[in-house]
């Protein structure tokens, strides 16, 4: 994508331990365009959150970004000085972390937290910033925002807190929004509202959204394109419609099989046997081969590169989509 808002190329993140360097993200590449939602999906431990941390430059030691390029609107941001990177955070990239409760400082009113974010990135006065904060809360569907703006985080319910956190991430009108598991802690009705909000954000304000989740259902509803991650690598990457309808990579097929579909004629949910490998025990060749029903000799020794399969890119040695009959 040539005019992508976010462009990640060959990203590699390592953790230095006394047993050597553990690779958490191994050669990940993707783009997010203006007004589009890229979903990054995979089980826990796949490296999704680490990728997000790397993009905003908040990897904690002993972790570090070892290789790759990250570009925002064409300009490299991974090699910036800390102060320059700080100015980008919030102003150009908004981030929402996994737990909305712990993301908010319990001792500060949410109004104060909103105003400090706005005044850090814009030239607005405190009064103007406060007015903007109120309108942000209103946009997100928080009732009586002029009153609630002076409340403390513990006075909000889970769904409301998620909205407050979103408001904080969007306070300075960034071009890119990274959301990590925005719906995991919420009940279904609130989930639907948040998803609707994100889609509106994309369509109306042309914000690029990087949506990280383990829930394929959320991807199906929200994303335009999807990247499937496994053991720090992208195994399948393409338009949501295509990947969902004809998943190619055996791991993606496994994930799809685990989505409950009331209309389909299935008797049991498919479960992928085994578990995501730990960082210290990543298998050689294709990292998925121990759990793959179609693995053959080459999968054990050589790591597959991304190759075109229809509308998607897949990192797999299989030439054709395996037939359903060969799967458990």
């Amino acid at each position, binding site marked *: 994508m040539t005019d992508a808002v976010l462009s990640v190329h060959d990203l590699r993140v390592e953790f230095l331990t006394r047993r050597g360097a553990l690779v958490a993200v191994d050669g990940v590449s993707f783009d997010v365009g203006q007004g589009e939602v890229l979903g990054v999906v995979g089980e826990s431990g796949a490296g999704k959150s680490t990728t997000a941390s790397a993009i905003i430059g908040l990897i904690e030691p002993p972790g570090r970004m070892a290789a790759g390029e990250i570009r925002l609107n064409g300009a490299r941001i991974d090699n910036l000085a800390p102060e320059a990177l700080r100015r980008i955070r919030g102003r150009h990239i908004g981030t929402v972390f996994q737990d909305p409760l712990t993301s*908010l*400082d*319990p001792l500060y009113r949410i109004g104060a937290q909103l105003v400090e*974010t706005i005044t850090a990135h814009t030239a607005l006065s405190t009064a103007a910033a406060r007015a903007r904060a109120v309108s942000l809360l209103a946009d997100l569907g928080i009732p009586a925002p002029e009153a609630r703006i002076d409340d403390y985080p513990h006075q909000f319910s889970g769904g409301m807190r998620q909205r407050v956190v979103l408001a904080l991430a969007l306070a300075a009108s960034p071009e890119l929004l990274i959301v990590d598991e925005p719906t995991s802690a919420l009940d279904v009705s609130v989930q639907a509202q948040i998803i609707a909000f994100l889609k509106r954000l994309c369509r109306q304000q042309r914000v690029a959204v990087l949506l990280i989740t383990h829930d394929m259902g959320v991807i199906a509803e929200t994303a335009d394109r999807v990247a499937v991650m496994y053991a720090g690598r992208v195994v399948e990457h393409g338009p949501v419609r295509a990947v969902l309808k004809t998943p190619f990579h055996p791991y993606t097929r496994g994930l799809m099989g685990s989505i409950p579909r009331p209309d389909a004629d299935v008797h049991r949910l498919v479960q992928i046997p085994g578990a995501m490998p730990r960082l210290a025990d990543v298998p050689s060749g294709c990292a998925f081969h121990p759990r793959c029903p179609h693995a053959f000799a080459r999968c054990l020794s050589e790591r597959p590169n991304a190759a075109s399969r229809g509308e998607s890119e897949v990192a797999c040695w299989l030439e054709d989509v395996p037939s359903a009959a060969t799967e458990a």
Partner: protein
Amino acid sequence: MLAFILHRLLQGLLVMLVVALIAFTLFRFVGDPINQMVGLETSLEERARLRQQLGLDDAVVVQFGRFVWNALHFDFGNSFQFKKPVLDLIAERFPATIELALVSALLSLALGIPMGVYAALHRRVWLSQAILALSLVGISLPTFLVGILLIFIFSVSLGLLPSFGRGEVVQVGYWTTGLVTRSGLKAIILPATTLGLFQMALIVRLVRSEMLEVLRADYIRFARARGLASRAVHFGHALKNTLLPVITVAGLQLGSIIAFAIITETVFQWPGMGLLFLKAVQSADIPVMSAYLLLVAFIFVSINLIVDLLYAAVDPRIRIDARSG
């Protein structure tokens, strides 16, 4: 919030009651009060008459009630050692100890908190490592040793500061203060430093570890992700969250300082309650011991209560009940 206050008040009362019980038991049953008050030649009839006069033959509950009643009127009887009312003895020494305690507490907080914050924010700088090492030494040095050392250096060798006494004091109503005279100020420096050093080391370590913990919190990460300046993150969010539990500890420290004053007052011959208490322990002067116990318990309970209230006032999670929506 109201429930919280009531609960704390009741807890304080419970502690006072238990302490009163212990003080009473000491007072009445440890050793024989009569023996302390009379000579060896007094006849048995004299002693029996004295017992009845003092109400020592009444039911224990009655005696306890009388004890509490007297205590509330500040009547603790006479000291065995000095033959004076215990109240007078303690009252004249109370200001000395409190002044010493307050100055030490202020010193330890004023120096300890900044050092702890610095050590947490600049972990890898050598100064932080030095602060950490010094704080370790600080908690390993017994208070009396620090006192002896300071006296040796500043009094004996350099002759700069006095090694005993309070200097010149000024009477202000009931209170006597040494803080307004030059000699008084010189006299309080060494004792206050001695008393405050251990507490300062504790505070440095506490503040540092608390702040390191806070800096790992999600809301700090989120603040950074929002692009807030380091100053806002460290001295706005991190510091506020760090100091909250430190309030509790600082308050409890004041109580600890009052207790440790016993040592400092001994080394420096500082005319305070602690020295009085020590002499009472050495000569088994029960009335003084039990009165001191009650007074100190009252001070500690009050400090605990004030600290709890302060904490509740500052922490919005306790002050304001959670609403849903």
